[in-house]
């Protein structure tokens, strides 16, 4: 944690955070699937003041060839921050931080992509942070997961990610920049929602065991909600495609009825078989303004 002193109180007297959120409240999140034309799959995530774009290419040929794995596909994620994404210009290109993040994101995706179905190939995942306000690796992973599904890459599940932490001795969900810089702990986490298993787990700062468990609980709750947003974003994209180009049957005496919307769920790739149907309410995450829907 930065450990720098904040200019304002991070926890107000009424127990709310300085941006008005309750301790267990997320920032507003919107997810859009399929925002780029060239990429095989893409997604854009706005998460508070974060803006993150993700694109997927592949499975495709691996270059250089020595990286090929004859038994399975490799997932190569590249997390990159735009030089203008932070208030002090960031030197372009990979630094140690971004290389570490790229590594752990690649590892997380290798656990869910059916890599054994695509030997000798690579699935390239590009994450560009356009505007950063803390939690960019989580926003990036969340976006990339939707982009992978948008690309039709077979996966065991979508991966949501979120970071909770601690500010002024209070455990809080989804740190923003000020809280991240001046807070006492940060816990980025990504799971497989269907099983609750951890795919990404990092922590820095200072947590007692009980605080850590509380932060994990906040994360679990948030991840479940973000998961619904991810699915919603995918459904929305495919629903839009249908609206723009309605399928009109040639005129016959008895045209069979086509239920629009029936195909939507089927066409969403990587959807778990027991996924809730469209329209099912996301779990309570006390905030109405949050987008996606």
């Amino acid at each position: 944690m930065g450990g720098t002193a904040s200019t304002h109180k991070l926890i107000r007297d009424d127990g709310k955070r300085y941006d008005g959120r309750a301790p267990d409240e997320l920032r507003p999140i919107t997810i859009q699937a399929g925002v780029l034309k060239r990429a095989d799959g893409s997604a854009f995530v706005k998460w508070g003041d974060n803006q993150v774009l993700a694109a997927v290419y592949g499975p495709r040929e691996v270059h250089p060839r020595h990286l090929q794995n004859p038994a399975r596909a490799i997932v190569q994620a590249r997390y990159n921050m735009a030089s203008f994404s932070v208030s002090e210009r960031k030197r372009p290109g990979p630094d140690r931080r971004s290389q570490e993040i790229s590594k752990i994101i690649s590892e997380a995706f290798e656990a869910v992509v059916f890599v054994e179905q695509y030997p000798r190939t690579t699935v390239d995942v590009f994450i560009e942070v356009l505007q950063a306000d803390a939690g960019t690796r989580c926003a990036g992973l969340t976006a990339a997961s939707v982009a992978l599904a948008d690309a039709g890459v077979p996966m065991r599940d979508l991966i949501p990610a979120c970071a909770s932490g601690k500010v002024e001795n209070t455990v809080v969900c989804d740190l923003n920049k000020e809280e991240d810089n001046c807070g006492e702990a940060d816990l980025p986490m990504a799971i497989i929602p269907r099983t609750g298993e951890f795919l990404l787990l990092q922590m820095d700062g200072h947590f007692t065991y009980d605080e850590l468990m509380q932060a994990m609980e906040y994360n679990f709750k948030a991840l479940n909600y973000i998961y619904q947003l991810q699915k919603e974003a995918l459904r929305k994209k495919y629903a839009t495609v249908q609206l723009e180009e309605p399928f009109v049957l040639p005129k016959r005496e008895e045209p069979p009825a086509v239920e629009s919307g029936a195909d939507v769920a089927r066409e969403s790739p990587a959807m778990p078989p027991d996924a809730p149907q469209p329209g099912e309410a996301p779990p309570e995450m006390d905030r109405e303004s949050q987008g996606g829907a």
Partner: protein
Amino acid sequence: MEQDAIGDLKRDYINRLLAEKKRMDGRGPDDVREISVETNVVTSAAGSARVRWGETDVLVGVMVEQGTPFPDTPDRGVLVTNAELIPMASPFFESGPPRPESIELARVVDRGIREAKTIDLASLCVTPKEKVYICYVDMHVLDFGGNLFDPCSLGAMMALNTAHVPASKFGLGEDFKLKIDHYPISCTTVKVRDGLLVDPGLDEERVAEARLTVTTDENGDVRAMQKGLSGKLTFDEVKTIIQSSQRVGRELRAKLGLGA
């Protein structure tokens, strides 16, 4: 994860042993290997430590130089951590620019040292905004016998623990000993097919599915964590790993006489 036949045989062997709560080198699943620490082994460095941790051998050197502080922390010294996976340490290491593995290693060690407030960076400030001491922690892996995170973290902490700031060299008064406030201990556990293994050896690490490093302080509080590899961990496994890391930290601190 190793894909070849030998890897498969070893994986089966390691899991078969684990069913009987045994390991290839005779340890139990929760046991840490034999550890020895030697300090001040390199006189040219401001501080140094050689850690032999099972078959892994690591040399950490601390160098202190003067420089300018970061603009956002004008009254604090700078801590820079770097890991060198030199080719002599393993047939798997190659020379060249740092790979993601060594970057991750250095950053995880750095996080543990930094977040536990091991050294008071304010004590490394000479003139705010202008001049501070920069503390370089360079970790040289000499022999890679599995689990680099924990030996490197211990080596970094012990090297800092012996370091002197060469103030006179820069005409800034008398040399002084670097003050150590906390003693974080990192503990790494891997998940293999049938269970968890604390402090993995080389073969265990090569068949591991997931890895979790947890750094705890004297109070058992958690200061840093890092999951690695593309396997999954359940919530219960995470809790078990955190608790065994707290235990290993306690035992190791007692053994080395740190933080009383």
